[in-house]
């Protein structure tokens, strides 16, 4: 009885006309993720209480899994700013269909990354020093400032999505505030673009400025090394791809059509375009680096790739296999039209950028700089992995919640008219769990 009532109360929260699974099924879906979150929080707790000796990082591998994945996640989260930019600044109205979802993904990615960073530093209590005694010449300062600001922006952008919830909307104050805030979103989108532009770049700059690490060091102009711009382009390239992926994933899991397939293709096209630009720029940069930058600093570039397992294959994989190939696929209308190809290419693009972040982080640190030190290896400890899994679980939870109670995909209702809803009663609860 009470159950039925709570079920009814729960239904009241779901926007009109959207099909969502029953409350128990939703809870069933959330449970494993909550468990994972708790485990991850325990791991992170260990690192915070006992110190970073819980990780497998060391003086030579000062950065590890966390930094690598943070960079990746933030690059993937770039969809939020880039889509926002396209919708509100370039007025690409078709993308309205995914903007809300993009904002949620962005929020999840950035907040998750920041949370992990807090565990990664040795003295989290002193995090505010960066704001108090900023070294304006440090790329990390730029990153910190921009990311915190942008996280605020994302939170504010997320607010209207929440306030539009059917129940909350009945409160006049919320209704009005949402309405007024929504009118100003373009300002936030603008600011977000500005901020993202800089921190995505400075994340690359982090490595580009390492004069002591010729593998990562790049020339550039003014204060920004070339990687700065490569990171911006690659992030912009992979952002839409990631939205495309997540949308398709949600469609699969929830067994619904959420956006028109044209929107997905558009995302793919934009992604492909940026990716092509990126691959070109990256190639030029690599050539300059191999032939000038690195040799000038006494390091023949050939030697970087003579330490197993980091052979030249990694360069090939990064630029051609996971760069050029998906770019071409996404730019070929005939292939783009095939969802399989579309999704595969998007996935490869994401993989490529992840690989790039991996190389910049791990290979940079693994390579010896002194003639008498050794090529080192590193494998994350379970605490490190666990901490990151917490972020994944957190992401899934926040997204699932938002998907159930907020309108992430405005077109969903119209689209559901087209497909007769499938009966999922006997289907596997998780798969069928349409949130």
């Amino acid at each position, binding site marked *: 009885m009470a159950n039925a009532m709570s079920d009814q109360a729960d239904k009241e929260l779901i926007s009109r*006309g959207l099909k969502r699974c029953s409350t128990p099924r939703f809870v069933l879906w959330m449970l494993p993720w909550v468990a994972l979150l708790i485990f991850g929080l325990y791991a992170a707790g260990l690192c915070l209480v006992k110190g970073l000796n819980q990780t497998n990082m060391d003086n030579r591998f000062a950065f590890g899994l966390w930094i690598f994945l943070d960079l990746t996640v933030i690059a993937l989260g770039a969809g939020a700013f880039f889509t926002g930019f396209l919708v509100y600044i370039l007025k690409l109205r078709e993308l309205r269909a995914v903007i809300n979802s993009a904002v949620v993904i962005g929020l999840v990615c950035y907040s998750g990354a920041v949370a992990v960073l807090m565990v990664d530093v040795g003295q989290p209590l002193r995090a505010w020093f960066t704001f108090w005694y900023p070294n*304006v010449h440090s790329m990390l300062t730029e990153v910190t400032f921009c990311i915190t600001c942008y996280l605020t*922006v994302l939170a504010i952008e997320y607010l209207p999505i929440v306030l539009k919830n059917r129940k909350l909307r009945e409160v006049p104050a919320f209704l009005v505030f949402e309405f007024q805030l929504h009118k100003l979103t373009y300002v936030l989108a603008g600011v977000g673009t500005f901020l993202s532009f800089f921190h995505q770049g400075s994340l690359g700059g982090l490595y580009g400025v390492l004069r002591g690490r010729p593998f990562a060091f790049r020339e550039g102009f003014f204060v920004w090394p070339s990687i700065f711009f490569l990171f911006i382009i690659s992030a912009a390239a992979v952002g839409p791809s990631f939205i495309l992926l997540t949308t398709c994933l949600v469609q699969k899991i929830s067994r619904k059509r959420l956006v028109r397939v044209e929107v997905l293709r558009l995302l793919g096209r934009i992604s492909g375009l940026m990716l092509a630009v990126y691959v070109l720029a990256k190639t030029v940069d690599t050539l300059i680096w191999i032939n000038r930058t690195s040799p000038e600093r006494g390091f023949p570039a050939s030697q970087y790739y003579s330490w197993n397992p980091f052979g030249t294959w990694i360069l090939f994989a990064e630029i051609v296999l996971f760069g050029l190939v998906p770019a071409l696929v996404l730019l070929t209308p005939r292939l783009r039209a095939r969802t399989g190809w579309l999704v595969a290419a998007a996935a490869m693009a994401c993989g490529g950028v992840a690989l790039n972040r991996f190389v910049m982080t791990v290979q940079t640190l693994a390579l010896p700089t002194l003639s008498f030190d050794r090529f080192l290896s590193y494998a994350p400890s379970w605490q490190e992995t666990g901490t990151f899994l917490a972020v994944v679980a957190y992401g899934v939870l926040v997204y699932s919640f938002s998907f159930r109670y907020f309108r992430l995909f405005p077109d969903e*209702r*119209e689209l559901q008219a087209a497909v007769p809803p499938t009966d999922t009663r006997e289907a596997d609860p998780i798969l069928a769990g349409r949130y």
Partner: protein
Amino acid sequence: MLPWNYGFAWNTGHILFLGAFYTVLVIIATTVVSALWRSRRSLRAHQTEEIRWHSDFHDLPAADRVCRHVLTGEFKKRECPHAFDCRECETHAKLIERHPLTVIAGPDEDVFGMDFPLDRYYHRGHTWARLEDDGTVTVGLDDLGRRLLGAPDSLELPMPGDHLTANGTAFNIRKRGAKVRVLSPIDGEVLAVDGPAGQWRLRVKPDSTDERAFRHLLRGPEVKPWLMREMERLQLALTAEGAVPTLADGGEPVSDISASYPGTDWDAVCGKMFLEG
């Protein structure tokens, strides 16, 4: 960070960097604050109803936002830029100037067996308004609206003395999980609520009885095309909710449509028909 902090220097680096940072902070803050301030102002100005309607209208699918002159075929396609408030619409003004809508008094139009007398104005949210001789206005739910809701499970009517705004909520109705607000056709103050159950009416003292005050409402020749479109939308809504269409064959809608579609999400159907998105 601040001039008296360690390591601060008045050099390009600091000025550029911190300048940019503070600018961003200011912009973000201003945005939020101004949003807050504006909402405070609109709350003060009792614009809640208006805003709710605008935000609903904004969320309606494009097909449901068409201009009334598309219904009558004067336009191929046009989206209403004024959220169905033709009172400030120049286009509408021009058009009715060119050929005014004349109401031919005669036998009441019969549409799909529903009665839509032409002695009154119709609101696109399925209410009607009739100007009485004593200068008051009677407001009621139109026939299709009544059939959609049948005998409501619950009903929230305004109190005498309440003020209604055009396109604002007139009353709320619950019916089989459907929870809809019915839009008021005109601005005015409620004088009385009377009439038998299901047949009730609101007697409203309009803010103005001037023709302009009714300009946004449908009348005479507009009613039929509009209703035909409404029936299409209803059909669409029903199919979307997985019901088998029965109206296509011109079969008359029964007095309580919901009863004949037990499987459907009535909330969704009514939401669509009463323009609540």
